[in-house]
């Protein structure tokens, strides 16, 4: 069975600092996508970044970047220059090429300290 594990229920970071959120997953598939979604207090689910498993290069979106280690089945999110607006629940997620469903981790609540 495919699972996504986020071992950090909550994290805090000082504004303007860098923080890394951890995620591991388990799958027997070779082709899949990995995502990080952000859910602020408004509860909107916002796609932060996406990685295709066949790509060795780590995805980057402005201040957000990932460290994708396929062999270790690890997919961490690094947020640089943290801003107050980054405070949210962050979900790591996975889906195969074949299926529609996205499997989410339990989430990491990120607090930004001014």
């Amino acid at each position, binding site marked *: 069975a495919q699972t996504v594990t986020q071992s950090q229920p909550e994290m805090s970071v000082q504004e303007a600092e860098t923080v890394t959120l951890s995620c591991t997953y388990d799958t027997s598939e070779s082709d899949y*996508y990995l995502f990080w*979604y952000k859910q602020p207090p*408004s*509860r*909107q*689910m*916002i*796609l932060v970044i*996406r990685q295709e498993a066949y790509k060795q290069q780590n995805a980057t979106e402005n201040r957000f970047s990932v460290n994708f280690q396929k062999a270790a089945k690890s997919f961490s999110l690094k947020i640089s220059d943290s801003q107050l607006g980054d405070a949210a629940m962050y*979900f790591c997620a996975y889906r195969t090429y074949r*299926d*529609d*469903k*996205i*499997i*989410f*981790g*339990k*989430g990491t609540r990120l607090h930004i300290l001014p």
Partner: protein
Amino acid sequence: AAGVIQSPRHLIKEKRETATLKCYPIPRHDTVYWYQQGPGQDPQFLISFYEKMQSDKGSIPDRFSAQQFSDYHSELNMSSLELGDSALYFCASSSRQFEKAFFGQGTRLTVV
């Protein structure tokens, strides 16, 4: 840019009543997904449609049904509502060509 539109945003129903949630995908998106997120929980996949046909099914109760119409909007019908159905229901849409799923703002259903 247009986003996924869900209606209503909030809904209060009594036990055993029926609810219908609507989802209007981003234009030219051909796939719609429904997710249920209980309080303090991660979203759970319910069902998806591609080109108006059911494409994948998750943990959707038999009391729930859904369909995608010719204009690609989708409706989630929920009957015999139970207190445990109280949750945030998300709809998401994507284009099979690009695979990124974009979520609507959700419908908060409260069953009393």
